[in-house]
């Protein structure tokens, strides 16, 4: 859509930040800062992260979710993020898309989890249009009954973030660091990780996915590309509370000791 046409339609502005290989901790810190201290809408696309990293949701308990012995032995970083949802292991083959919105700029979406989730399902329905089997199933993006995209959100007074990690590809060995969680979607049945997930690369080209995602977002917002180095000018210094953090080795050791 041309900028003039978008302006004619009165679409709200959204800043687009395109990243490649940014560490996931840095990405999450950036997102939390933008959610809390910016008044703009943001779309962040990070093509892969640098090293395999485990990322748990706000309430995640390492002992329940992780095979702590191998995680510590192999020194896999473990992050607890500011959004809800489950546990993933991400690496250079994971693609990340995050959408931060003012609730008033998406007036047909109530600032509650299911409404935001439905809106995202519709947006990605446009991205994967023509690819058989895509749907938002419970809270996951799937092809058929196999998950390739995991979602999480954080909702504050007048804004929300919906972010997704897409399994472009994955290393089967990495899945072994994760336990089968106690809370699973019904459609998972009792499948283990390798039978439950699928690789997005088997369905769409990487560049196609990025361009179609940007286009789908551009149908609802006027996009303006912003470089990472210019982001400081969009945020305030105060209220910069970061809750996303890397867990220490001591914390992981204590978690393991507490269960034995």
């Amino acid at each position, binding site marked *: 859509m041309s900028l003039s046409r978008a302006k004619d339609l009165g679409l709200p502005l959204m800043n687009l930040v395109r990243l490649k290989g940014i560490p996931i901790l840095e990405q999450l810190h950036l997102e939390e800062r933008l959610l809390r201290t910016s008044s703009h809408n943001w779309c962040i696309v990070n093509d892969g992260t640098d090293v395999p990293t485990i990322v748990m*949701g*706000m*309430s995640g308990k390492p002992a329940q979710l992780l095979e702590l012995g191998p995680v510590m032995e192999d020194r896999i970083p473990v992050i607890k993020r*500011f*959004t*809800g*949802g*489950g546990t993933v292991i991400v690496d250079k083959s994971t693609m990340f898309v995050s959408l931060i919105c003012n609730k008033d700029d998406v*007036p*047909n*979406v*109530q600032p*509650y*989890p*299911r*409404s*935001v*989730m439905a809106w995202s399902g519709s947006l990605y329905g446009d991205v994967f249009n023509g690819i058989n089997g895509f749907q938002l199933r419970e*809270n996951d993006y799937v092809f058929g009954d196999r998950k390739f995209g995991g*979602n*999480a*959100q*954080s*909702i*504050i*007074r007048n804004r*929300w973030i919906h972010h997704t990690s897409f399994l472009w590809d994955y290393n089967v060995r990495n899945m072994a660091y994760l336990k089968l969680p106690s*809370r699973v979607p019904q459609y998972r049945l009792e499948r283990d990780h390798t039978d439950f997930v699928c690789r997005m690369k088997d369905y769409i080209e990487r560049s196609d996915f990025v361009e179609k995602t940007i286009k789908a977002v551009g149908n609802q917002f006027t996009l303006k590309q912003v470089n990472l180095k210019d982001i400081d000018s969009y945020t305030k210094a105060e209220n910069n509370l970061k809750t996303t953090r890397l867990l220490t080795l001591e914390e992981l050791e204590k978690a393991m000791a507490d269960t034995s």
Partner: protein
Amino acid sequence: MALRMWASSTANALKLSSTVSKSHLSPAFSISRCFSSVLEGLKYANSHEWVKHEGSVATVGITDHAQGHLGEVVFAELPELNSSVSKEKNFGAVESVKATSEILSPISGEVIEVNTKLTESPGLINTSPYEEGWMIKVKPSNPAELETLMGPKEYTKFCEDEDAAH
């Protein structure tokens, strides 16, 4: 006497049998759009928290409207005892579905009690939002703040208007 209305959509959200009780309805309360319970005797914030002020203690939680829209609460993050809360500022969060949602304090003051039952049973926020699902008790530092909150009728209309707008 507390006025309660349970409508079918709320009952469905809590996986209860779908019944609508009309035995305590007052003509002042329209049920045409409001599908959540709103109690007399409480004050309400436009961010969907409630306050019960009794003497020098104010109890705070989230409303039935809020819990219904959030979905099943699986975790509640609450403040430390003796910490301070400020009106319209975040004091905690709940996790439901895949989301963390912040909870704003309707009043300012000191936290004098935290509902520790929510650690093991966060679902109390869904099943009993005004009673067992209370979150914090506060010693208000400025009781006049309560006057800026909505009463039951005003809050009921607020919920109706909010839902109708989407």
